[in-house]
């Protein structure tokens, strides 16, 4: 016990290095007009009203962002995000060659809580979806596709990290979710009510800041 008290006293009395009075001003994460683009794998889950189950698959994603600065820790931007699934279509029963493309165009806010490159993202905007499924052959042996488009609203939340590679450029790692509410989708003789596509992706991007 005596040894412990002596050790604590020593620690408390031990001279500590003085903290700098003026910490260096943290570097801004992004300045002025900035832009970013990137790509990565994603997963999409499509649900609808009255559906007893959901279907999901993987696909390639890409995004483009452009924006400005609100404050040292908050930037605002416009984001275009798209997921293309070319092996899945609209349901697992759809044949090869079917495609489903869903995406969002959203106003986003990136919040950097600290001096490091970690940020959180939230955004809201418009959503679109296009579903194309090969149907019966047309005249001359050509393949005719039933195509349907839907539009609605989109939401996005995510987290990312800017890794500076120079003063002007950074590599940006992202993990994000996107919710796109597309309304009714009609392909051929199928009518699907109130489609909601939830997408999740991880990506790597290049940021010009």
């Amino acid at each position, binding site marked *: 016990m005596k040894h412990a008290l002596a050790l604590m006293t020593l620690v408390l009395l031990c001279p500590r290095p003085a903290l700098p009075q003026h910490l260096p001003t943290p570097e801004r994460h992004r300045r002025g007009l900035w832009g970013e683009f990137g790509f990565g794998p994603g997963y999409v*889950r499509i*649900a609808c*009203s*009255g559906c007893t*189950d*959901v279907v999901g698959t993987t696909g390639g994603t890409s995004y483009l962002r452009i924006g400005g600065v609100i404050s040292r820790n908050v930037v605002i931007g416009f984001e275009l995000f798209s997921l293309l699934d070319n092996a899945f279509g609209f349901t697992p029963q759809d044949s090869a060659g079917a495609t489903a493309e869903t995406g969002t165009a959203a106003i986003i806010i990136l919040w950097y809580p600290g001096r490091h490159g970690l940020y959180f993202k*939230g955004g*809201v905007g*418009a959503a679109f979806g296009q579903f194309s499924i090969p149907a019966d052959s047309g005249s001359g042996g050509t393949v005719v596709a039933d195509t349907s488009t839907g*539009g*609605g*609203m989109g*939401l996005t939340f995510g987290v990312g990290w800017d890794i500076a590679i120079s003063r002007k450029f950074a590599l940006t790692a992202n993990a994000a979710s996107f*919710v796109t*509410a*597309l*309304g*009714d989708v009609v392909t051929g003789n199928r009518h699907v*009510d*109130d489609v*909601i596509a*939830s997408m999740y992706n991880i990506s790597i991007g290049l940021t010009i800041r």
Partner: protein
Amino acid sequence: MQSDTLPRPNAFRAIGQTIVLNTVVNRLDAWARNRDWAKVGTRAWARNIRLGWAWDQDGFATNVFAHPYHGSLYFNTGRASGLSFLESAPIAMFGSWSWEYFCETERPSLNDFLLSSFGGVTLGEMFHRIGETIRDNTATGLHRTFRELAAMPFDPMGGLNRLFRGKWKRLGINPAEHDPKAYVLRVGVGGRFARRLVNDSMARMGTFVGDLSYGDAFAGKYRTPFDVFSIRLIVNSQGGLNALNGSGRLYGRALSDSLSHIRHQFAVNQRYDYVNNPAQSFGGVSVEAGIDSRWRLGARRDGFGIRTALFGDGIILGAIDAPGTGTGLRDYDFGPGAGVRWEAGLDRHGARFFTLLGRVAYIHTASGGAADHLVNVSTLELAIPVTHRVGIAVQTSIFDRESHYTNRPPDKRDYPEGRFMLVWTKGASTP
């Protein structure tokens, strides 16, 4: 004066209170009200996580009024824990998201999440500021207790936090929100006359209208989100709550000199709208951007002036009645959209004597009947002072809607109404 009447920022306390709030409401629904949808467990949680978002079929009032009010409770756990507006907004989203995934056996509802989150932030900040205006940390005795109780319906989470921390009696300084510098409160009671409310005959009923303008966009510089907001409540003797509309300034930037005769300001506002009666149901959450202007009449800065506004509106989620076309039991559609709002009026010290207002909103259905809806609201309001505070008000409006469906004939309706009221106005302003 002590300063510990103001809460110190604590995000963990806000998150904890949100979890407790959800748990208490869920258990009350499950145990006291025996609601099947509230009897959740790990199986329901796993199913909700696996299936994800859907649209629900709840009634219009539940979805467009009750959920945003519930969202305001989440938001105000943040404000009561000392967090700022921006820091409290994610708390509203967290509360709504966790309720949808873990407190109901039904699939998480996207419309609930959006309306509770965005509507909760809008109503929450307004209610927080109204509560802080009513409460007074310098008051004592019965007067103090009365103020604390009067603030409870607006900001119950703030009131309960203060009660449990012994701040209902403690003397101290007031927060900045207590004094908006400029405000106008106008309440009116009278008669409402509406055609086509139920059928083509004229319906007559009693009405109460409350208008609050908190802050003045031209009284000072932009300081914080919702430093300027306006809210209107309409309650009728038939049907109860008829309308609740609120708009708060998220951001403002002066475009002209403060001494100029003609002043313009760029503003971004966050809106919440709820209109529900037998003839029409319309509401939602939106963000608008545009120009507010004031044209001074005469030499006096505190004299009469003409105010104008022109705003473009992005509707995050709108809701509109669509009889026979909604999903399942629901008789209204949900969807995003856009709109325009314009306004012109004569005022003094922020109190309006004459107002012309028009609003056009377009909603594209994302859930319900495959449709595009166009709503047009035109309003004319006149207030004639009789004494210093009492006057007579005449308000007329026409709600006109046109819905185009992909698989049924278009629906065109209009709905005129008028209100004739005795009004009482109280206000203060800093010229």
